[in-house]
């Protein structure tokens, strides 16, 4: 029983692990839309914090980019997630826990005429998960730099462990291909079209997480068994973004993405944002983002009986839900006289308030309800970033 509790307690960690890998794929193939220049030389130091649904994740992040010469730029990033979890999944079946994830990324960009060639490597490590991702991208300008085409590919391989079973060893592979087209439409309008395919193969579920099923043989009326995902997944996402420059020097942005995958999750998200500089040093930004998805075809909050079907999931990330995000950001730019080698500096604070509202994920920590009629779950999260940047 103790082993089982510990196992469930670690469940959310593996969920974070798995999603990080997906995240890395997306992160690594981001390329500059203005390809005929090397990335800016700058250094950023950030403290990040996520607090919501009983989970606190915070830690530092450092990103440095430097040009070696006029053709080559290199970058390195260090990132840490320190996790303390008493989420609804953990509170329903186990005890709170703490965990840490460390990530390193190294990349290089090589400029040849109007072509930028990029490559890099990311490693993410936890006590029960190790992920390595490699990426390569090429970016080309056309039509007097009015258009930029980005093509990129990533490959990741993961080793999945289990803290309660030293003999447990699984692997997973991830491949991503991204096509991006950025277009100067008018002297004030910029648009981007993005198409992204990701495929996964291997052990894709969580070695700890469970699903619940009706069990009239126990007093509370339900029991848990380990979840089981398919061993393959393929997803496609298409996104359109635009930014428009307003005549009094401000910018408005609109973004939309449609997502679909072989687990029959369809998702849409729409964002509006507005950036407003004030005087010489200040920049304010507000945004609204709405996200909605339906459930995976093997998701259920409550299965009819044990081993009810071949694939089983009760991750709320695979359920039907909506989320709304309202964000604010403020930046102050200054001349860092104490660093005579620096061109400028900025200090920035960004704060997002996100609400998650689930349609078919029930809160089993609520008492006094019959099995399967518990209230649906919802929670709010605060996401804060405080960072300091220097350009040189």
């Amino acid at each position, binding site marked *: 029983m103790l082993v089982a509790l510990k196992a469930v307690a670690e469940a959310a960690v593996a969920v974070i692990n798995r999603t990080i890998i997906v*995240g890395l794929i997306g992160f*690594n193939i981001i390329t500059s*839309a203005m390809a005929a220049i090397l990335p800016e030389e700058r250094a950023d130091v950030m403290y990040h914090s996520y607090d919501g649904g009983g989970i606190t994740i915070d830690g530092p992040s450092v990103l440095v980019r430097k040009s070696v010469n006029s053709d080559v730029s290199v*970058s390195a990033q260090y990132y840490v997630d320190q996790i303390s979890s008493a989420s609804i999944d953990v509170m329903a079946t186990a005890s709170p826990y703490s965990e840490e994830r460390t990530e390193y990324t190294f990349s290089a960009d090589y400029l040849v005429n109007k072509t930028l060639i990029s490559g890099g490597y990311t490693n993410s490590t936890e006590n029960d998960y190790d992920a390595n991702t490699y990426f390569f991208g090429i970016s080309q300008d056309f039509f*007097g730099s009015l258009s930029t085409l980005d093509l990129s590919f990533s490959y990741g391989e993961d080793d999945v462990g289990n803290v309660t079973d030293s003999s447990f060893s699984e692997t997973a592979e991830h491949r991503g291909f991204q096509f991006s087209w950025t277009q100067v439409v008018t002297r004030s309008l910029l648009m981007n079209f993005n198409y992204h395919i990701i495929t996964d193969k291997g052990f894709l579920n969580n070695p700890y997480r469970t699903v619940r099923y009706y069990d009239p043989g126990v007093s509370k009326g339900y029991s848990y068994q380990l979840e089981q995902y398919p061993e393959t997944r393929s997803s496609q996402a298409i*996104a359109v973004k635009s930014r428009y420059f307003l005549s009094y020097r401000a910018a408005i942005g609109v973004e939309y993405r449609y997502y*679909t*995958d072989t687990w029959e999750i369809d998702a849409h998200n729409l964002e509006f944002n507005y950036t407003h500089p004030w005087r010489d040093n200040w920049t304010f930004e507000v945004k609204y983002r709405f996200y909605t998805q339906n459930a995976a075809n093997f998701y259920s909050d409550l299965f009819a009986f044990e081993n009810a079907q071949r694939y089983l999931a009760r991750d709320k*990330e695979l359920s039907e839900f909506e989320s709304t995000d309202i964000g604010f950001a403020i930046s102050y730019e200054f001349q860092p006289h104490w660093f005579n080698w620096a061109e400028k500096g900025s200090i920035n604070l960004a704060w997002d308030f996100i609400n998650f509202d689930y349609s078919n994920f029930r809160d089993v920590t609520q008492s006094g309800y019959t099995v399967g009629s518990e209230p649906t779950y919802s929670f709010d999260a605060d996401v804060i970033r405080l960072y300091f940047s220097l350009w040189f």
Partner: protein
Amino acid sequence: MPSLRFFALIRLLGLSVTLGLIAGCSSIEPWVKPYERANLADPIMSFSRDPINATYMHHVYQAREGARGAEGSGGGGCGCN
């Protein structure tokens, strides 16, 4: 399945447009001249001004949502890798 047909069409369209544009790029005159791009070059026009912040928010969304991908393209010389 409509979505599969939709994405097959998108792929075909994307390939056609890309090849067409590459083949004919030398014959198209830029309609926004370099000296007319002051607005576009303003840092507030970047799709993600601060890569360290943009990357982190993509990570937060991916950790809590079923969807993933197509967040890329920094734009405006943001230097997102």
